[in-house]
Structures are given as C-alpha cells and as structure tokens.
C-alpha cells in the first residue's frame, strides 16, 4: 500500500518521535530552571543548544541511510585521528577530553558515540548474519580501538558507552549467546587487570559504590547527598523550585550529571514516572522504527542507538540513585550541557532518516 505522505514526512520528520523528544526537552528545561537556581541565562543557553540539536537532527534526517553507511568509515577514521590528537594536545580539567580550535571546543569521543555504531552497522549489514568469526573479529576491532583511546584520556564512562553502542550492533546482528558468554567470562577474568590499570579516582568511585559511607566527604559525598535528595522527595516531591537539598548546595553537579536527583526531590515518584513514561515513548517508537526498517543497516543502527539511549538513561539514574558507580554520564535531554545533547538529537536524526527513506511498495 502507498500511504499519503504528509508535509512533515516529506521533510523526513517522524512525528511521534519528534513529539516525544520535544516533550522530553521541555521537561528538561523545567527542571533545569530549578537546578540552575532559576538562572534565565542557563535556560537560554540550553534552549539555543536544543535548537542547534534540532536543526542538526532534521539535517541528518535528510540523508538516506545508505549514504550514511557509505560515509560512516570516513567519519570513523577522522574521529579516530582526533582521538589521537586529543591525547597529544587536548585540554580539560584532570582529564584530556577536549580539542580547542579557538572558535570551537570539541570532544571527539562524542563523535565516536555515533561513528562507531554507524561503521559497525555498515560493515555488518553486508555480511552474512549471524556474523562469522572473521566478521566478528573485525567488528570487535572497530569497537575496541576507539574505546581504548578514550580510556587513555582517561574517561572510563564514555569509553564504556562508546564500546557498548558498537557491541549492541553485534548483539542485534545475531552474535551467538555462547560467544557472548565466553566473552563475559573472559572479561571477569580480566577484571583484576582492569583494576590495576585504573586511576585512583576511578578506583575510589567503584569502592564507594559498595559502601558510600566510607568516605562521606570525598567520593561518597555525591552518592549520599543524591540519595538523600531522591529519598526526601517522597511520593509527590517537595515542589518545583523547593528542593532544599538541591538549593542549599549540598548536591554537587546538580545542573549536569545529578540533575535527576533535583527532579526526584522536587517532583517525587509520581513525577519520575511521568519522566520515565516520556522516555518509554521515545524508546518504543525507536524500536518500532528498527523493526519497520527495510534494510539491515537501518535495523541495526536504529536498534543499537535505541539501546544505547536506554543505557544512558539507566546508567545515569542508577548512578543518582546509588546503584551504579559515579561515571559522569548525563541524563539525555535533561542535563545541562551542549555536546551530549546535540549527539543524542543527531541520533534521533539517524532514526528519522531510517524511518522516512523507506520505499513504500509492498511493505507488509
């Protein structure tokens, strides 16, 4: 059947998805206003970033998936080069993550969050699935090389996220459970090795995860204060702008990584369920796009980006509620900060591209 094509569809915009995204950004702005101590300045900056992100999203949506697949390796190589450059001449507090071009400060690891899954998906889509050992090996190489460079910066959190976005492509590509089990065993065996290669602050963060009270003024402080904020929010919350835990400055990073704690404190469990519902709308729609995709590339990239988005949400919320270590992952579309927001929105652009470039001939 041939569906009537609306104007928005011809603009390659997926209405359910953009609706849910806009809803999410609005919720984000509401809580950001409170978390930033009612700073209009912060709000305006964030609004500008959302606008830039939305433009980028719509722009990306115009490019067909097959073209994206063709461009992916080049983007991947550029990203890899920039990662090396960051190690040589990057700037940043404690860790080198940024490249400063004077007119623009840029975090190459952010680029790899999209370049890695695109490249792996492009590589695997042509191959016979489930992947044969050779394909798997090459794909793993594609994933682990940038991840290793990012660990070096050092940025463990981002490294894991970049790696998982690539591994998810392998997962959706049908890699065998057996292989995954073996890798997991191998990984656990290598854990002590990883422990010794960690930086002190990363070790402390892992340790304080298991017993935050150990170090109440240092690394455990984040977790203690954020669980107090979340817990004291209760069912209905303390009300917008009334989160004393947040506003008395007990909560660190409250506009960025820990903004979820502010949300929990002010809007309570009821508010959190609304937030989760909004995320669920985005994820359900994205998975639907993956299932409806006609080409294997589209399916793989859509599904892996969706699962990656979920992981972001899960890791951030797990961190704020004291279930996961503090790894510095922002809450998508809510946390203050430009780069990750734009990356996420470009991801949605890719999903829209997959959805709107289908050939409607005999889709069952």
């Amino acid at each position: 059947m041939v569906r009537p094509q609306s104007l928005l569809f011809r603009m390659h915009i997926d209405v359910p998805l953009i609706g849910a995204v806009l809803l999410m950004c609005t919720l984000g702005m509401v809580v950001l206003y409170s978390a930033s101590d009612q700073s209009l300045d912060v709000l305006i900056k964030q609004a500008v970033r959302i606008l830039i992100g939305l433009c980028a999203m719509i722009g990306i949506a115009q490019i067909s998936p097959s073209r994206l697949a063709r461009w992916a390796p080049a983007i991947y190589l550029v990203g890899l080069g920039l990662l090396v450059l960051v190690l040589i001449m990057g700037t940043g507090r404690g860790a080198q993550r940024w490249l400063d071009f004077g007119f623009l400060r840029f975090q190459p690891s952010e680029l790899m969050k999209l370049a890695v899954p695109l490249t792996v998906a492009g590589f695997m889509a042509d191959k016979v699935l489930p992947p044969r050992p050779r394909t798997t090996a090459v794909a793993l190489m594609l994933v682990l090389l940038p991840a290793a460079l990012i660990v070096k910066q050092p940025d463990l959190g981002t490294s894991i996220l970049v790696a998982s976005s690539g591994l998810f492509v392998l997962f959706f590509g049908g890699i065998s459970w057996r292989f995954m089990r073996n890798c997991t065993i191998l990984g656990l065996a290598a854990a002590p090795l990883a422990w010794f290669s960690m930086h002190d602050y990363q070790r402390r963060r892992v340790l304080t995860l298991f017993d935050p009270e150990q170090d109440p003024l240092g690394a455990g402080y984040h977790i203690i204060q954020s669980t107090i904020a979340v817990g004291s929010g209760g069912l209905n919350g303390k009300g917008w702008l009334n989160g004393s835990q947040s506003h008395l400055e007990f909560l660190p990073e409250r506009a960025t990584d820990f903004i979820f704690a502010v949300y929990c404190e002010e809007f309570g469990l009821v508010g959190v369920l609304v937030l989760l519902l909004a995320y669920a709308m985005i994820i359900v729609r994205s998975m639907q796009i993956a299932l409806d995709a006609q080409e294997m590339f589209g399916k793989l990239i859509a599904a892996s980006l969706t699962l990656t988005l979920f992981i972001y949400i899960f890791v951030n919320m797990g961190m704020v509620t004291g279930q996961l270590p503090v790894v510095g992952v922002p809450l998508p579309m809510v946390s203050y900060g430009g780069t990750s927001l734009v990356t996420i929105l470009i991801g949605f652009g890719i999903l829209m591209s997959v959805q709107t470039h289908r050939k409607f001939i005999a889709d069952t």
Partner: protein
Amino acid sequence: MKSLPTLKDVDRERRLFRARVLVACVFMALAAMLIIGRLVWLQVLQHAHFTTLSHENRLKIVSLAPPRGLIYSRDGVVLAENRPSFSLAVVPENAEDIGAAVRELGTLIELGEETLEQFSRELEFARRFEHVVIKSDLTPEEVAVFSVNRFRFPGFSIEAGLSRHYPLGESMAHIVGYVGRISEADLETIDQADYRATSHIGKIGVEKARENLLHGSAGYQRVEVNAQGRVLRVVERTPPVPGADLYLTVDARLQAAAIEALDGRKGAIVALDPATGGILVFASEPSFDPNAFVNGISRSLYRSWSTSADRPLFNRALQGQYPPGSTIKPLVAMVGLEHGLRQPRQTTWCPGWYSLPGDEHRYRDWLRRGHGHVDMKHSIAHSCDVYYYHLAHDLGIQRLHDGLVRFGLGEITGIDIPGESSGLVPSAKWKRRARKLPWYPGETLIAGIGQGFMLTTPLQLAHATGIIAMRGEVLIPHFLDQFDGGNGTESVLTPEIYRRPSVQLRDPGFWDEAIDGMVEVVHGPTGTARRSGVDAPVRFAGKTGTAQVFGIAQNVDAKDQELPEHLQDHALFVAFAPIEQPQIAIAVIVEHGGGGSSTAAPIARRLIDVYFEGAVRDTDESIDG
C-alpha cells in the same frame, strides 16, 4: 554445532533480529523495573528516613563580619561609631503574597519608589529562604509601627545590624570621611575572602586611608541549617578579630571653634602641632553630612551637593589650591638670606612701585604711597611688596623656586588621607612644559609676593608655617595618633616615624630673622595684624596674605567692596604659637574674604585663644606635649 550459512538469508536474519529486539526489550523492561524498584524503596519505603536526613546533617559555613574599629578625637570624642540599625526584610518562602504584603506595608511605612525598585530587583535573584532587605535604617517609629502589625505580615521581620554613624556629622566629614557599600572597583583592592560578610568599606578620608586597621579580620562559623536553610545550631565558631580603634590627633573642641569662627563663610582652616605633625584642626567649609553616604545617598541629594556652587564635597583644606599671597614673604626673605642677597638690617627703598630695569611698567605696592626705607623685619611686618619685587628679581625664578620647594610647597605633604593636591611653585622649566611659553621676568616679581601661577593648599601653608616654627624640623602632617589593635595590642605611633630630614639654613639665626618679622606682624605697633595681637594669651607669630582672584589693572586703586563677592580677594593668615617651643601652627583661608588682616587673622586668634584657654590652666602638660 550448527554450520554457519554462507549466503545471506533475509528471512532468517529478520527473524533473528526480531528475536534480539525482543530480548533487548525484556532487558530494558527489567532494568526499568530495577530503577523504579529502587525509587520506590528510596522515595516511599525509606522516605521518612531520608526526610530526617535531609533535615539534619546540613552544615554550612557562614562568614562573620568583624565589627569596624571606632574613631576618636584626641580629646576622647567619638567621631565614628557603629550604631544598631534595623532593617525590614522578608524571607520569600515564608511570605504568602509578597506583592500584596509590600503594598500594605507601604501604608504603614514610607517606601519610596527607588526602594521598591531595588527590592524587586533583589527579590528576583534571591534565594527563597534567605532574607531580602526591603528598607534599611528604619526609624524607631517605623520599627514600632511594624512590630505592632507584625502578625499581619508572615515572613516579614525586622533585622538588627550595625550601621556606621558619624556623631559630629558635617564638622568632621573632611577628616573622617565615610564608608559606603563595597563597589566593583573596591573588590579589586581587597581580600575578598576576608570581606565576604562585610558590606561597607571606607571611601574617603581616614575611613579609607586606615581601612586595613579599621576592618579587622573575618571570622567563620560552621552552622547546622534545617530544610529551610534556617540556622539550628552553631557547631564551631572562629570569632572575627574586631577592627582597631583609632585615636586621631584632631581636637574636636578646637575643630568646632574653627568652624564657628568661619561663621558660614567658605574657606579652610588647618592647625597642626608643629612638634609632632599631628593635625589639630582640619576644617573645610561648607561641608556635608557623611551619614548620608553610609547606606546609599539618594540621587537627588547627591546631585544637589555635587552641582552646588559652594562645593560642599570639595575638601578645601586638602585639595583647595589658592595663591598664597603675602603669607610666603617670610619664606622668600629666608631664601634671600640663604643666598646672601640680603642682610637683615639692609633696607630697600619703597616708593610704592617697582619697575624692571629698562621697562616702563610699574609693579605697584599695595600701599600706594609706599613704605619708605624698609628692612627685612618691617618688610614682613608691613608686608611691603616692593621689597619682595626687588628680592625676587635679584634671586631669579629658579633660585626662588628651589628655595620655596624646600619648605614643602609645590609638592604633597604626604598626609595620611588620600586625595591631596600638590599646589604649584612655578619655574621657567614648568612654564615651558605646561604652557609652552617662555618665562618673563615680570612673572618672577609676581611670584615673589605669592601671586601669579603660584598655588598652595591650606595644608601646605600650615605645614610650611610649622617648619618655620620648629626652625627647620620637618614632620609630616598626619591624623593617626595611636590605635588599639583589639586584643591588647596598643600602638602609639612615635613622632619619629613622621620625621623627615630638617631644612638646614646656612645660619640658624636666619629662622629668627623671619620669625621676628612675623612677631612684629602681630605684636609690633605697625604690624598688619596688630589688632589680632591685642591681649593674646600667648605671644604669637603670624603673617597676613591677600590672594587676588581677579587681575586688577595696576594703575587702578581697587576697592574690594565694589567687586561682586566671587571676584573679591581671598583672605589668608598663617600663625604659630608660642614663639618658643611652639605648640600650634595655623593656616586660615577665607574665600573672597577680603583682607587677610581683617578677616583671616581674627579667626586664627580665636583658635589660639581657645587652644591656650585649657593649656594655660595646665601649663606643665602643654610644655611636655
């Protein structure tokens, strides 16, 4: 192990993909359940526990402002103090409808438009649980009216604080100066950590000059605050170190007498103790009320002061630059002696005018008929202009300039309050640089009688008079006598820190030649200020001066009375007393006051009377001092 397919099987791949998506969805659902479960645990089951935690364990560090040091006069009068002051404030989260409440408050307490504007601006950026001040410095009546009606305004309260107050107001404004709110510019000059809790800083006068002594250092306390940010308990406290109390050399009684003697005329009076350099009187009239600046001066009042023709904000004693007129004649006489160009008994013929060789132009004496044969003593006593035209011509401008600069003219004295003017002793070099013009010989003559380009501040004149009184000893004029640095550390500043190298004359007897002339001014039968010397409690030395404001053609006999007030001459008088072991040196300038002998000298005499009234009763002490 199943063999792997070697060709793409689209249907199989799709089935596989679908299965994996299903697995992913199940995973995501489980993970979401985990998060939700955790949130239910934290927010519902453990809610009470975390609410308690959020009410407790709230340690904050609060900076404590040190109380500012007080300022006293030498006779123990408080010049600057910290007075309790009350302000009306509101904690936004405790108030219901701030707008309506403020409107209602306006019917009880007068809230100006400027006040309300400021308040709404502050309210916008304030935290909900911190005080926002609506109006500061409430009158006792306003405090009472609000207190009675307090129950009607939940969240509003009266906050007590300390506010700087200057009990003597106008009379000490040009000495003590005032404090004001810390500005952006101030922030760059201070240690911001130390000033976190401090709201005011010295802006001018002693308040500014001695800011580091007066401020003290901030303390800290660790406090426990509740959910609203209200302080529950002080856990730990490091008290602030209060600022040092300052004792000034200024004599409040004498200062009051000086201002009274000026009797509303514009002018300046500086009196100092020549043996120490300590300032006794530093009056500049008209003055202003420094209390107006403390909590922010209103724009209209500031405009009226800063645009007033009387310039009340202008510190005439410190910054006013006036031609010294004849008051510098004793100095010029000594320069002449120093260069061997005059002997004390040597006379000059004064026909009432002087002409440069080969020039028709007549430089007139103030006494048209002339003074006849005049020696040095009488040239000072009668203030003969022709004597000094001659002498200046013989000296030349460079030697005159160099000689006068030795007495501190033309440069700042280094007094311990900021903003001093340097005055001007002209020279050919100066004129070439500043005016791009050559020096004319006639200008040397005019300079010799303290007119023309020459400018001095009242402070410089008192300082120079002090140097004469002390026969060359130089002590920097200053206000700070001693300070009490809080925890028992008292510091008396010895006069030695204010001492500078003496002015050495070829023959110390030259000082007495000048001083004899100055005594003759007051006590001689024909001295210009003889009327002010009658029945004086002590013998004193003085010199009159009249500074022309308006250039009067040389051959016209000017009568000041015929000129409008703002064109009349400034009246000057310098004096010191007693003649041996001097205790007070004085410079008086009355703007447009006419003659030095008729207007300025009686003021100096009045100060001497008041000063020695107490000292005569207590002679021993005054000689020790």
